[in-house]
């Protein structure tokens, strides 16, 4: 392992330092509540193998997600530097970056460096204030590159304006990794009184690497958006396998309840096209099943689709690439139009809500602009319509709610899910803070599905730390294994992250805390279904 830098880290160290910038020592992180406060009780941080160390650059913090090549010829370095600069220029050009130029310019030119945003960032705070994770650090690197290499007079006035950074291989390798040490939760942006958005700048840095240098995170690009466009889903599930899954769900439910059950697929002219995150079918099939039960019981006209891309609401383009974002959003709309539905309803997947529900709004034109809606509003309407016979005493266990950043902070869907929980879960309690000031689960911006190398350990120790702390605090006084408790997370990515956290810290084993979606709780309260829907041992 490399030596770690000792003195306080400066902006320029990203290109200058020959040593690893930060070493994560679990003892230095903000402690979790007891009995989770002894770092020695949990798995050690996975070290890279010697071979991996030789191949990939880990000089940022010892973790690798992007895997920037370690040794690069001078010629290749020059080429990358040139490409990066051409990417920066494109970022500042209205044709190539009309998509985000306005917020980017504001964010680049008017930050007062007051650091108010740092107090809002769970990653920076929980890491024990590691400088490189400060929301302004990566933004300041990009700012200084622009000042030195793009602005007229940059090299001349150099240091006075902070144009003092050297764009070299070290910087590129570390910046590529660093752009994936932020979950794009936008809590920092919300805290900034000027309106600077460091999450947006982070995403713009990812865009340069992806759209200009072909440097991406394989989990998000090759196995994510590309695979989704190629095989139909980022899970790799082709349309035929999707249909098999649907049949399995129908049989499973019928067998369990002895009730007839049908999941409609490709029904033309239904009112709604319902799209789930395809990960649900594989990891939490009870979630799409519960949706089916509720919609059928409420008499809603809807359909699923088995068309390529349309059975997976995932759109990882939201996290790193405007072009992939647009391609997938258009596909979703195209299939909805083809089916002749009145609207698309998005299942419990936060980033799909934001990608298709909000951000893609300005990619559509009249021919493909189809209304999109959150499942949470629809579910609230159903639950309060009286169409379902609900018995809250069936949910007589403590429940807390996680707010997915993309649904809540970025979209303002705050109350529907709460209204439902207040109605059907008598022991519902909030986390602190919650609602639009919630903390990210730590799996945001695609991290929940990033399983390569030793990055998952970073997710467990750093980015997920605050959420775990909040969950444990919500059940304070009841952290023993005696009573079952439930974290409701209406988002696939958040569930993936919470699943991994619970496994890593043995939360279910030690404290009987389970997790799941919202629809499962609704079905669990439906008195028409004789057996309880939530099977604890299966969660």
């Amino acid at each position: 392992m490399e030596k770690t830098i000792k003195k306080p880290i400066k902006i320029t160290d990203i290109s200058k330092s020959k040593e690893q910038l930060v070493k994560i020592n679990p003892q230095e992180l903000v402690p979790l509540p007891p009995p989770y406060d002894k770092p020695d009780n949990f798995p050690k941080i996975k070290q890279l193998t010697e071979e991996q160390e030789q191949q990939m650059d880990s000089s940022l913090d010892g973790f690798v997600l992007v895997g920037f090549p370690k040794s690069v010829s001078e010629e290749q370095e020059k080429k990358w530097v040139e490409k990066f600069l051409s990417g920066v220029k494109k970022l500042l050009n209205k044709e190539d970056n009309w998509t985000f130029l306005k917020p980017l310019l504001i964010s680049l030119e008017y930050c007062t460096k007051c650091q108010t945003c740092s107090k809002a960032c769970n990653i920076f705070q929980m890491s024990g204030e590691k400088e490189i994770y400060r929301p302004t650090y990566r933004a300041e690197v990009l700012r200084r590159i622009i000042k030195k290499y793009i602005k007229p007079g940059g090299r001349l006035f150099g240091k006075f304006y902070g144009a003092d950074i050297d764009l070299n291989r070290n910087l590129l390798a570390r910046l590529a990794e660093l752009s994936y040490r932020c979950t794009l939760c936008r809590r920092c942006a919300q805290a900034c009184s000027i309106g600077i958005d460091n999450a947006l700048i982070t995403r713009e840095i990812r865009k340069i690497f992806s759209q200009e240098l072909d440097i991406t995170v394989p989990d998000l690009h090759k196995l994510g958006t590309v695979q989704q466009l190629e095989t139909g889903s980022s899970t790799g599930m082709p349309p035929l396998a999707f249909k098999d899954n649907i049949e399995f769900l129908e049989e499973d439910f019928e067998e369990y309840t002895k009730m007839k059950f049908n999941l409609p697929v490709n029904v033309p002219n239904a009112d709604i096209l319902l799209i789930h995150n395809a990960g649900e079918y594989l990891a939490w099939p009870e979630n799409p099943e519960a949706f089916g039960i509720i919609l059928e019981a409420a008499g809603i006209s809807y359909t699923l689709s088995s068309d390529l891309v349309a059975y997976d609401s995932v759109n990882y383009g939201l996290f790193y690439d405007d072009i992939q974002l647009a391609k997938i959003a258009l596909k979703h709309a195209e299939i909805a139009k083809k089916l002749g539905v009145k609207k698309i309803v998005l299942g419990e997947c936060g980033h799909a809500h934001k990608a298709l529900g909000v951000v893609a709004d300005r990619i559509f034109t009249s021919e493909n602009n189809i209304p999109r809606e959150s499942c949470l509003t629809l579910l609230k309407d159903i639950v309060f319509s009286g169409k379902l016979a609900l018995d809250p005493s069936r949910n007589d266990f403590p429940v807390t709610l996680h707010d997915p950043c993309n649904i809540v902070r970025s979209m303002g869907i705050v109350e529907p899910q709460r209204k439902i929980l207040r109605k059907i879960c008598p022991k519902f309690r909030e986390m602190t803070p919650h609602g639009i000031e919630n903390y990210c689960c730590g799996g945001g911006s695609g991290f929940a599905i990033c399983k390569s190398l030793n990055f998952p350990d970073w997710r467990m120790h750093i980015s997920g730390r605050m959420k775990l702390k909040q969950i444990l605090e919500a059940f304070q006084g009841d952290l023993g294994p005696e009573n079952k408790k439930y974290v409701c997370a209406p988002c696939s990515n958040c569930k993936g992250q919470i699943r991994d956290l619970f496994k890593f810290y043995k939360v279910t084993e030690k404290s009987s805390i389970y997790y799941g979606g919202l629809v499962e709780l609704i079905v669990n309260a439906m008195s028409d279904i004789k057996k309880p829907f939530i099977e604890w041992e299966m969660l």
Partner: protein
Amino acid sequence: MSSLSNLQLFTLVSCVFFIVILAFRTIKIIRTPLHLRWELMPIPHEKGRYYYGGSRYEKIDHWKKPAEKSSLTELTAMLEEIIFIKSLFKRNRQLWWFSYPFHTGLYFLICYLFLLVTGAIAENNGVTIAADSGIFGTIVHYLTVFCGFSGLILSITGAAGLLVKRMTRKELRLYSTPSDYFNLVFFLIVMITGFIATLLIYLPFTHMIHFMAKYFAYHRVRWADEPNTSGSKVEKHVIKQLGYKVSWSASHVKQGGTWADIAKDTERDANGKNN
């Protein structure tokens, strides 16, 4: 007719200069294209939902329903920011103690300059501005003295405090460039020597005109929730911008195409042209 004194002339020229550069930087932001939606809660014009950060997306079939907007809550939120810098008060009290007098001082100084120009114009037209002149002249005189004096005291206290903070707090020092210190030092020198108009020539080149950016950050980004409906102005922009040429060079981007072309080019991903 008395002619303008050199100081008055310089003040006037500085004001014009300030406005021109500010306008230039404002236009730079205004001229950027309509971006993809990127709002951030809370949105104060959301009637009945602002207090908890809710939005129209909480309503079923939201596109069929008229937006329920409240200009009152939006105006209140703006005034709280403009007059008290409420967000900083809430999130960074330590800094607010200096930032607040600094900004309030600036408001007074702007009034002071405005009064100076008013006075100059008035005197040029034969109206005396002094303690014992007519009602108008007396009011303008005392207001000028009050604004100038309060502005000086408040902004000097604020700027000095901000400078000390910037120099002593590690997290501020690490990110400060020489120009950041210079801005505050220059400000203090100008205030102490009283040559305020000089500031107007320098300020617009710095991030210290962020009040303008703040307007756009809030109104055009954070709170900009205007949907894209058929035949709307938004749609016209979208159609135009989808026709822009794209020059991004990664392998998943169709070369030489417009945004509309590349967004439909999913074959590229499907046939493995991608890495």
